[in-house]
């Protein structure tokens, strides 16, 4: 599995198709994150942005090989499900690195205070909350990408449209772990209290595991 993930990650890095989602994310951060702004607000914004970016990275990873190359790797790896899982994990890993780096930068440059700058916010719990919220969004983004791309949706148009729509819904629908985690950070910022989103993370992990398992199983039947 390590060799497979390494192959997929190398493919992603060399293909340079990661550039578009990463640049979009950097632009999104440049617009919304300023030095000296309240830390919890900025962390919520940073986490929320990772959801569509992860979905995009997953889409890149599962479509970056021509079918013949995919067949060659699937035969060597012992089936398409394993090869597909490696692609999803490579995307998840890259998104995790990006989200962690963004969270670290936000923690370093933001003002550790509530929205009205009256209450101090302790940085370690704020950092933990930010990382967990980012993890929630990354996992749900991966689930979105896994369900809205190959093997469930093959056409490019439908796949992109579904990815955008589901990513948006995952951020705004009540009950979505990503929405719960981000809202927890932003509303906590008003009073300077840190809500560490443990339950949303568990929910997001369960959703992502189910989505990845379904997508991988289906690859052997639908390509």
């Amino acid at each position, binding site marked *: 599995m390590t060799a497979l993930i*390494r192959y997929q990650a190398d493919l992603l890095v060399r293909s340079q198709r990661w550039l578009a989602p990463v640049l979009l994310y950097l632009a999104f951060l440049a617009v919304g994150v300023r030095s000296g702004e309240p830390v919890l607000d900025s962390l919520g914004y940073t986490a929320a942005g990772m959801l569509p970016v992860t979905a995009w990275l997953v889409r890149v990873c599962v479509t970056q090989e021509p079918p013949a*190359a995919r067949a*060659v790797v699937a*035969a*060597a790896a012992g*089936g398409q499900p394993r090869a597909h899982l490696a692609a999803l994990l490579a995307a998840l890993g890259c998104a995790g690195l990006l989200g962690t780096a963004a969270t670290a930068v936000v923690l370093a440059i933001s003002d550790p205070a509530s929205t009205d700058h009256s209450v101090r916010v302790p940085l370690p719990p704020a950092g933990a909350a930010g990382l967990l919220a980012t993890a929630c969004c990354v996992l749900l983004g991966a689930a979105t990408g896994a369900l809205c791309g190959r093997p469930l949706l093959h056409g490019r148009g439908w796949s992109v449209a579904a990815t955008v729509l589901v990513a948006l819904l995952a951020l705004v629908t009540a009950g979505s772990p990503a929405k719960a985690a981000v809202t927890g950070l932003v509303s906590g910022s008003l009073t300077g209290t840190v809500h560490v989103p443990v339950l949303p993370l568990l929910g997001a992990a369960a959703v992502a595991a189910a989505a990845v398992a379904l997508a991988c199983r289906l690859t052997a039947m639908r390509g």
Partner: protein
Amino acid sequence: MLRGVDLALPARSLVRVEGANGTGKSTLLRLLAGIDAPSEGRITGRRPRTAYVPERFPAALPFTAAGYLVHLGRVQGLRTADAADRAHEWLTRFGAAAYARTPLAELSKGTSQKVAVAQSLLAEPELLVLDEAWTGLDTEARGELDRAVAERVTAGATVVFVDHDPRRLAGTVDTAYRFEGLGLTTAPLAALDPRVRVEATAPPGTPLPAGLPGAPAYTLAADGTASLSVPAAHSDALLRALLTARPPWHIGGVAPVPDPQPHRSTTRDGDRTP
């Protein structure tokens, strides 16, 4: 779509699958290689270490030939250093060592196919599935692939292949299957090319003319008698070349070579039954 297909793949065997276009040869090969799962029916037996060569290998991947092979070698379970050594070795055998550092996207169609074939041989697979892997290779590389297939079978592997040339690996194929309708039937094995033996004489010490048609196998005695054997299709051209050579050769006799037994007698140890 395939239905009612039933076949067993014993170890140490060479299996040919034939049939018209669109009858499901590639689908069957993908099932055997473990790429796709059957929607009905099942594949039993331990999944062997498998390698697969697709018919066309569009190399739109951002790796060099050697870089790709090292990745694939690692996926097949080799350590990085081993994978790099074997990548070099197989590229050399197929005459593509000069392209090791060339990006896959810049390779010609034939050289990409050599890379696709090389990846399948890196880790000595137990099951090798070749979907018209010879298509696009040059003559030397085709011969090298024939030899590599023979080596794998000798080492105990199962090799399943599809090729449009009915003479491909003729004489070493153990079982041939043919698609008819939606089913799979056992097909007769292609016989070896019939050969013709030519006895010719020239003054003692005369060498045989260079570049004889059909690349004959020959023995040349000190008294100037030569015995040559060529595929029947080349016998007329060979005779013409011998008769018009300087000095001319005298033809002593022409006779068909008795057909050698096309079946190899091998012991079958252990059955793999996908």
